């Protein structure tokens, strides 16, 4: 038994070193890019130490781990908790748990399970898990294979049907349950004033996000930087994050007037694409990196790890406590375009909107193996995208780098088709 425990400890230690090296290498690569500017340093520094203890120390308040973005961030903050979205982009963490999990399981969740093994701090905080996809519905039990959770876990039942008042009421009661849970875990009681203040704070961040997105539509920020900047939302206090984001936006806006402004990576942009499909989490920026290497530039996306990381706007009319909770619950639920929902045809709206605003000629669908709702969605979306006269490319992959060359070749072959589209 002792030998087995030792072997396990050695494996953990090796995986931890690999994961740290993976994060460090990716950060180093980003810092070495030609389009790196000093205003990005704050955001990259947030990822220097991947542990949850680093976040706890930085924010100086209790933290709660969160999977999926259905749980309103504003509610956590109003009740004195800092929500840490667990990203699960580490290949090393994913490899650690792979042997004990199905081969075709979502690599993001494999990686998150690996992270719970590598970072003991994650087990010392309460978890909130909205049950969006099937993998998440079984996440708590799956974690039991590795020893179970130490702190309470709240699972939120997400209604997959959005139409009608029944699902709205159900989700509102779940969000209310989240509030009770946070209070039980030592959080502050829910107060109308604090919730309103928290909503206003996030609205400020949304406005800064919007400005950054507008700069992205003009090709003034590369997708890898864009993605890591937005991910920083869950790694520092909103006020500090917002200040740094506004500084970055100002710097990029200044850059807009310069001749080389539309040349991330020092290259010439030949094809603007829209990225959709499965989320892309740091440090696994494989697909973003390959798209840029192929001479394409992501001018928009609808990934829940990026442009959809927060709902665009929370409209508050009824300012009673119930009214605020209702506004948050409905905005996070109804506005979510994740393919786990029934009748999700409105997801194409974001692509349509982006194509109205930017020079987008094609859509790249990023599909992580094992992500079945997105797999199905890709076939439906392909038809819609073609009907608009745009090119469509589906790329199915995982966190390994073995297929990188193959994907790069496909992307390079995709590029001339966009050029042809321009000629038309």
């Amino acid at each position, binding site marked *: 038994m002792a030998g087995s425990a030792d072997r396990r400890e050695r494996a953990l230690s090796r995986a931890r070193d690999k994961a740290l090296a993976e994060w460090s290498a990716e950060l180093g690569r980003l810092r070495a890019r030609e389009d790196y500017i000093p205003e990005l340093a704050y955001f990259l520094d947030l990822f220097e130490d991947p542990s949850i203890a680093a976040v706890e120390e930085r924010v100086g308040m209790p933290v709660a781990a969160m999977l999926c973005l259905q749980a309103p961030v504003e509610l956590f903050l109003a009740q004195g908790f800092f929500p840490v979205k667990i990203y699960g982009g580490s290949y090393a963490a994913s490899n650690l748990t792979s042997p004990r999990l199905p081969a075709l399981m979502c690599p993001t969740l494999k990686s998150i399970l690996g992270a719970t093994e590598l970072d003991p701090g994650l087990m010392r905080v309460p978890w909130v898990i909205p049950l969006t996809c099937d993998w998440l519905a079984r996440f708590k039990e799956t974690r039991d294979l590795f020893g179970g959770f130490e702190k309470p876990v709240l699972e939120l039942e997400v209604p997959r049907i959005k139409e009608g008042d029944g699902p709205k009421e159900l989700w509102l009661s779940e969000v209310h349950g989240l509030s009770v849970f946070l209070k039980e875990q030592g959080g502050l009681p829910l107060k*109308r004033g604090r919730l309103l203040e928290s909503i206003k704070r996030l*609205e400020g961040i949304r406005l800064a996000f919007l400005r950054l997105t507008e700069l992205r539509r003009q090709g003034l920020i590369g997708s890898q930087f864009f993605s890591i900047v937005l991910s920083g939302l869950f790694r520092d206090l909103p006020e500090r994050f917002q200040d740094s984001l506004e500084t970055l936006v100002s710097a990029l806006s200044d850059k807009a007037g310069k001749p080389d402004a539309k040349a991330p990576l020092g290259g010439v942009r030949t094809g603007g694409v829209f990225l959709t499909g499965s989320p892309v989490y740091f440090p696994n920026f494989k697909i973003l990196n390959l798209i840029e290497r192929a001479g394409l530039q992501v001018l928009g996306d609808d990934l829940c790890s990026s442009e959809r990381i927060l709902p665009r*706007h929370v409209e508050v009319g009824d300012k*009673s406590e119930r009214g605020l909770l209702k*506004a948050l619950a409905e905005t996070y639920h109804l506005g979510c375009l994740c393919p786990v929902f029934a009748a999700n045809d*409105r997801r194409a709206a974001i692509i349509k*909107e982006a194509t109205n605003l930017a020079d987008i000629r094609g859509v790249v669908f990023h599909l992580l193996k094992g992500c079945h709702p997105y797999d199905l969605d890709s076939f439906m979306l392909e038809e819609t995208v073609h009907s608009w006269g745009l090119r469509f490319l589906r790329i199915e992959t995982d966190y390994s780098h073995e297929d990188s060359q193959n994907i790069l070749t496909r992307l390079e072959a995709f590029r001339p088709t966009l050029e042809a589209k321009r000629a038309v």
Partner: protein
Amino acid sequence: MLVRRYRIIVQHLSFVILMYGGRFGIQLGPAVPCFACPYVSGCGGQCYLMGLQGYIGFGLTLNELMGYQGLRALAYFLLFAFLVVMLGKLWCGFVCPFGLFQDWITWLRRKLGFPEGKFSPETLKALGPIKYILLGWLMVGPVLINLGLLHSDFYLPFCSICPGKPILPLFALETQYFAIDSTNTATLVITTLSVLIAGGTLAGIFARPRFFCTFCPLLALIHLFKPITLPHLLKDPALCHGCGTCQRGCPMDVRKIFKDGGDPDVQVSDCINCGECLGSCAAGGALCYKYAGKTLLASSPGLALGKGKAHRHGGIR
């Protein structure tokens, strides 16, 4: 939210003009398509509903219809129709003084943090025809009086029960319309009913935004002009994210604006063109306001967040 800010400015300016304009020599006449109450001393314009009841009530003989009264009624109707064609329901959302009064009460309730009351979809559907019934009543009532089938104290049948009659004159420090008139049974019934309706309306407004607009016969009358009005609120279902923000922002709780029906025409009879839906919608171009076919304003994330510009591609094309 930018739309709301501009609306509040226009509403307050309109309130001052329509409630006190007469004291400064401003008189917009008797064909104003909103609750510019003639019972307010020194008002700057008069609600067309009062004129409409009066003109219908003067008589039905050919001589009267073709005489100066008939021609005057026609002229005022044409003026009313012109104003409605030009601005449509913007009169309700941006100009109506009673609308602004309701918005003040809602603002107060929200400040105090009292929860908002909602009608169920079934109730809303059931209440929908009431405004048309009131419209019918205010047109039929004067005819019945003229034919001697109704007591003449029911003259101006809608004005006598309109909640605006006792409430709006309060802003000119006139409280007399809350008095109960016991001259005869008819006046007793009418004035008691008027006070009860005003009280119920005040309670309703405190519970629900624009409570009275659900029953407003003027909104019904303006809606009849919809096919020829120049302003129109339209939706592009292909750009809608389905977040429901528009419906939550809507004081009238119009559900069609959110429902995915594929129909671009979302200006239903309850819509008051306040622009709250458009101003709160963060989907670029999903909702747009057109005037004579040209896009005036379209939804955008910047507009919703309060500091941006309108969607530059103008939404529906």
